């Protein structure tokens, strides 16, 4: 109902006026964006086409697509690329499911609601590095509390080194990533749900809609736009994140959690190959844009159909 295609030029006088006025509001936001965002970004992209390395007064030469040619044969980078995509999608989906569920719960009139809502924010309230350290200490085999609880309750999996074991490391890290990503999703979806005019809900109850129908025809459309935005953003963020993974496993064990952002970071800051690292960044960016382009087109098509 709210996503009917907007006709930019309406005949009614009110429509014309408010349309014209509206776009002026966008300008202030774009000035600092352009100055401090466009220029560095363009420079960074430009670096991908040079042979720049770290150094004092080092000479920078334009080398065209050489970095990219080298990248094509870099099997380690592509391995990390695959890991990055699995990571981004898994964390986003898991966080979405968990966060959506929590938002629905928080929308009810429960006791200790305030406390619950505050608690739902905890994972985001801490710097990611602290989160990583905290979880790695929690998951320590034998001396960490989680393992102690597992042992006391005789649960299967007691004694596992969740972050060090080849099979469990990646899923564990994904779970922690989802833990960190949940709050934004929970709060944003909750805000969207709270934004539903209460008359709409009451009217639907009068019309005889049950809980499931209300969910499907009122809640879901209302949060569709924000969920779409959240999924897109999360996939982007997760794909380029590395701080959490770095502290948790440093890309190990055996390279199982080596995400591409960590790869590019090492290339730039550890080995000083700025040009090569920038080319990795460009490839990563292109991949994301492609993935998102597909996703957005698909969701837009759905919108129009409605």
């Amino acid at each position, binding site marked *: 109902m709210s996503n009917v295609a907007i006709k930019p030029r309406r005949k009614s006088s009110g429509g014309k006026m408010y349309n014209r006025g509206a776009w002026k509001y966008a300008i202030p936001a774009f000035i600092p964006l352009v100055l401090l965002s466009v220029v560095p970004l363009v420079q960074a992209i430009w670096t991908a086409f040079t042979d720049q390395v770290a150094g*004092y007064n080092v000479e920078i030469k334009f080398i065209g697509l050489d970095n990219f040619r080298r990248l094509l*044969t870099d099997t380690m980078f592509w391995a990390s690329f695959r890991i990055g995509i699995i990571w981004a999608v898994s964390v986003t989906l898991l966080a979405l499911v968990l966060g959506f569920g929590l938002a629905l719960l928080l929308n009810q009139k429960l006791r200790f609601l305030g406390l619950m809502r505050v608690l739902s924010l905890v994972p985001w309230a801490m710097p990611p590095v602290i989160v990583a350290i905290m979880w790695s200490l929690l998951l320590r085999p034998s001396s960490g509390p989680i393992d102690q609880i597992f042992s006391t309750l005789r649960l299967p999996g007691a004694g596992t080194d969740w972050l*060090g074991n080849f099979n469990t490391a990646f899923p564990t890290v994904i779970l922690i990533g989802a833990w960190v990503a949940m709050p934004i999703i929970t709060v944003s979806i909750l805000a969207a749900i709270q934004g539903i005019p209460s008359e709409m809900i009451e009217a639907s109850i009068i019309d005889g809609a049950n809980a499931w129908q209300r969910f499907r025809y009122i809640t879901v459309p209302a949060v569709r736009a924000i969920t779409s935005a959240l999924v897109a953003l999360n996939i982007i963020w997760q794909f380029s994140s590395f701080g959490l993974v770095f502290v948790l496993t440093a890309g190990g064990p055996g390279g199982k959690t080596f995400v591409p952002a960590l790869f590019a970071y090492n290339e730039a800051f550890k080995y000083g190959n700025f040009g090569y690292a920038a080319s990795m960044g460009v490839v990563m960016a292109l991949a994301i844009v492609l993935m998102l382009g597909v996703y957005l087109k698909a969701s837009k098509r759905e919108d129009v159909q409605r």
Partner: protein
Amino acid sequence: MINPHRKKEKIVKKVKLLSILAASVMVTSVAVAIPARASTIEMTYLTPAYLKGTVATTERIVADWNKANPTTKVKIVYGDVNNMDDKLTTAFAGNVAPDIFQHEAASILPFAKQGYLANLTQEMRPLKSTMPAGLWNVGSYAAKLHGVPTMTQTYSVFANVDAFKKAGVPIPVGSGTFTWDDYRALAKKFTTDGKYGVAWGLRSPAAMSMIMGMNYNAKFFRGLTASGGTTLSVGAAELEVPSRIHQMIYTDKSIDPASLTMTGAGPIPGFLAGKYAMIFAATYIAGDLDTAAKASGFNWTALPLLKGATNQQGANPQTLSVSAQSKYKKQAAAFIRFMMQDKNLAELALGEGLTPSTAGSLKIAQETKKGSAGWQQILDDGAALALAPFTLVPGYQKWKDTVLQPAMQQYIQGKISISELKKRQLDGWKSIR
């Protein structure tokens, strides 16, 4: 006919006036300049110190310096050790680097190659004879000193003295008296009824295995040329240390498998609880061991450095460097020499659980830690450190992080064979070059 004379007089007067003017200008400018040159300068010293003791010591040293040198003050800036590389890279690129900073030798080598570090050879000449040549060389590149080694760690086997006493096993002491075979035998001896003899935090084994490789004269890279070309060859010497560790884990079963994925300091709680008779770790854990000793009387010691063909280990000391972009290179060097005075250096090193580099500070450290057998052993072992030649190879770091680390992790966890380990090391090097 009076005119030419008058003119001459006038000219002479003018010249006299001008010269007096010029002279007074010169005198005033010199007078103004001198106080300007003597005004206070402030240098920044970036340190990754974070332990309580080290922070207190650093502040004391800087306060002492500032009191003695009120015109060349030093300001401490605390950095965090895990992000020093980022901070330095951007600071150098943006010309806002600290005047003096402390970092480990292996990490500053790239900066030296990039020309960002000042040449300290002249300034530090008096210190050269105070430390072993092997250690001194680690801070140099292309015959120029870019980082003064201050303190180092070694990889040692730590032992639970009470456990040894109870089993009636004598504790090895001295130097060169503890071989890998001895280590294997001891580990086996202490592996009884459900207990493991050794815990070894092998989550990130690459650096350790390269450094310990020097026990068997493992060279890895040969033919380092001026243009940076090298070949990697992995032979029996290079595979000796990994295969011995593998043997202890899988053949003898004397190393606790749970410790294989722990970080270097991970096995400490278990060690303190008496679960293992020995752990293999870097000597910086001595600080934690001392805390336990003080709180519960835990009796620990360090065994002599492991010996293969030799007991040499690759050195990666902490170093102090001066930025090439610094405006006060001479004063910065003077501050470094002050920090390295025997008493200061000994205090700093001991606070970190490390061995100080200079002979004088080593003596003071040994005095201070007289009552601890473990410390005596650690401090004695400092002489066995030498420059690890592979650190000079371009691309070594990338190979170590992206090829060796995952391969070693898989080998240690029993996922690949030793021939596969060798293959991966060689193939990985080829793809990086």
